């Protein structure tokens, strides 16, 4: 199911309010995030090892981003040498068109999908359905939400918002001949049985790419279930989708990134499978796809790349640790963000891709606590970028490259900060204001605009009888 944000009314306040009022959702997410945080912590018992590996991860991503255009060309050259065809798509429309043409040219009617967040960006399933091609999710979490017509609520565990009985009910309603059971093993076995035939019958398989290696012309896929390998080895056509930032220069760089990814994402030292694809069936192989294609998607990334500071957004390896540790995400879940990528990474990526004015609420929906940044394996300065995007949403400047910069400017807010700046920039004005605050502040009605938001759930803050500066002066504390 796809979302086209420009046609949807995005109201973060409404969606987050709804989520906050849903006790089941809050319980599910609290439990899930607590579990993921604990598992991650258990994988990084040695602070020095974490710090050094994180520094290496950050350095690898920074180095690769610095030489990105050259790396992409090298990647294309080596993939092509290996028999993998490379396509480039500036927009999601072009990417969808490319995939459609590949499928139609081969008479493909059924596509089986490994997991791909880029395909969610594209709204691929919806697009293909409109053209009579079935795209079936095979990752268990994605399969579950596809049955229910939902978007993923987390980038690693798409069905994390659902609990067992919800899934049990869904399976018994939507899977043919399925009985109602809440036993996880039985539910899993049902999905396995359904999808087994789909792998067999599919005309094409689609996957994402965790890392693409330029020096060897290789696509690296990380997974636990085996559906990725099924999707990429069984059907005769394999299409891989990748954001243009996912390329690394050398194979050896994959090792630390892979270690950081599995430990940060699911608290595993290693995933079940690491699948390295460097070509279609060839050289006497008995199986594997006849054709492998890679679609490299831009969709705003090259624009993000223009700004040296915001460019670090592209270092992301999609581990999801940021959202696992985010006190906001924990309380509202992924759907409330109304974006493909939720949580802290979504709050910096989505505004840059869709427009910082349109999506200005996302960077503001953060207390800037920094929990995300603390666990980011590639050291994206998330709180700094959130503040930067807040600025961009209300200020445009010549030569600026951020999409929609300044379009959320509010005359009222400008005035408020101008007044604030005047009072606090003039000690005399501040002294008068603080005198009023201490003498009369208690008299302020709790219903005033900003105060009302505060006093809805908290008692009114009471100023002291005299300010500290007054008291200290009276007590003789020196001022020079």
């Amino acid at each position: 199911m796809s979302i086209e944000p420009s046609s949807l009314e995005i109201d973060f306040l409404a969606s987050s309010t709804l989520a906050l009022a849903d006790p089941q959702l809050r319980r599910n997410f609290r439990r899930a995030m607590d579990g993921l945080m604990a598992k991650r912590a258990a994988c990084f018992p040695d602070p020095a090892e974490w710090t050094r590996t994180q520094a290496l991860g950050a350095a690898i991503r920074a180095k690769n981003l610095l030489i990105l255009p050259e790396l992409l060309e090298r990647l294309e050259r080596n993939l092509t040498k290996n028999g993998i065809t490379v396509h480039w798509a500036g927009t999601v429309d072009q990417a969808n068109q490319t995939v459609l043409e590949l499928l139609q040219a081969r008479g493909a009617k059924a596509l089986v999908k490994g997991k791909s967040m880029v395909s969610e960006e594209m709204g691929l399933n919806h697009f293909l359905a409109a053209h009579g091609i079935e795209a079936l999710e095979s990752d268990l979490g994605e399969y579950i939400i596809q049955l229910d017509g939902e978007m993923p609520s987390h980038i690693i565990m798409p069905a994390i918002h659902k609990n067992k009985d919800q899934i049990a009910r869904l399976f018994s309603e939507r899977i043919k001949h399925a009985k109602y059971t809440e036993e996880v093993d039985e539910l899993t076995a049902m999905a396995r049985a359904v999808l087994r035939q789909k792998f067999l019958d599919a005309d094409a398989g689609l996957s994402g790419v965790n890392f693409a290696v330029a020096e060897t012309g290789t696509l690296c896929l990380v997974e636990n279930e085996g559906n990725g390998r099924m999707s990429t080895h069984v059907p005769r056509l394999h299409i891989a989708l990748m954001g243009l930032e996912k390329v690394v220069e050398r194979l050896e760089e994959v090792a630390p990134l892979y270690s950081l990814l599995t430990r940060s994402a699911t608290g595993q030292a290693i995933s079940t499978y690491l699948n390295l694809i460097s070509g279609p069936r060839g050289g006497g192989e008995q199986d594997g796809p006849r054709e492998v294609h890679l679609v490299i998607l831009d969709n705003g990334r090259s624009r993000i790349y223009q700004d040296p500071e915001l460019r670090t957004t592209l270092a992301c390896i999609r581990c999801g640790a940021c959202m696992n540790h985010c006190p906001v995400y924990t309380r509202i879940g992924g759907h409330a963000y109304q974006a493909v990528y939720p949580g802290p990474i979504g709050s910096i990526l989505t505004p840059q891709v869709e427009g910082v004015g349109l999506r200005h609420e996302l960077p503001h929906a953060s207390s800037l606590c920094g929990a995300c940044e603390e666990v980011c394996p590639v050291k994206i300065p998330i709180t700094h970028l959130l503040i930067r995007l807040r600025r961009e949403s209300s200020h445009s400047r010549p030569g600026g490259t951020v999409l929609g910069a300044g379009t959320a400017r509010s005359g009222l807010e400008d005035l408020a900060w101008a007044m604030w700046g005047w009072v606090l920039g003039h000690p005399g004005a501040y002294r008068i204001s603080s005198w009023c605050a201490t003498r009369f502040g208690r008299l302020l009605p709790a219903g005033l605009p900003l105060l009302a938001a505060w006093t809805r759930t908290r008692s009114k803050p009471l100023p002291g009888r005299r300010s500290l500066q007054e008291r200290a002066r009276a007590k003789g504390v020196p001022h020079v």
Partner: protein
Amino acid sequence: MSERDAILAGLRAALPYGTPPVLDFSVMEEKRWNPCERTARLRRCMAAVKTEFLDAGPLDWPQAVVDLVLREGLDNLLFGPHTSEGRQLAAAWPAQGPRLIAYDHPVESFKQELFTGVAAGFTTTLGGIAETGGLLLTPGPLEPRLLSLVPPVHLALLRADRIFDTLFQAFRELGWNQSLPNNALVISGPSKTADIEQTLAYGVHGPKRLIVVLVG
């Protein structure tokens, strides 16, 4: 201008920024264990995710595999007949009982049987990874990709003296940065998921059981 050229031009339009950081891999290189520790570590890590181990010697491992197949009541075993290990296995295989099926013809000729009629698959491995557990495989003409994926049981032959400290070290020692086959693989256990209420379930789309035949 093609999509490709437009995207690359767009990236190149960005002013160069910063000097490339130096990559210090020492945190990866420092992870080292002695041979006994490596084996023990690999065992512990893989067993923790439901991998089973069958210990055997360099000469008797084919018989150990045969015994396992009989013991487990497996109807058949799919394998790559043209490796030296494959030949050894075939030589030890009993005339009666479970079938030893050669996977040396295109998958299209027996796809349905592969998916529904094969009980177990046997592969060799290039080695293992001590730090996290894991087996290194390079599927190819001799041992096809689906051999270690489709049958519900995967038997993998691992020589204890081929266990690397880390994946990083394995990449280096195997020279994979110079020559990767069409498919290379790390497998750390039977397939699993935690997508339903974060409860671990084994045997999703890949094999339900991974049995490592560990040759000391």
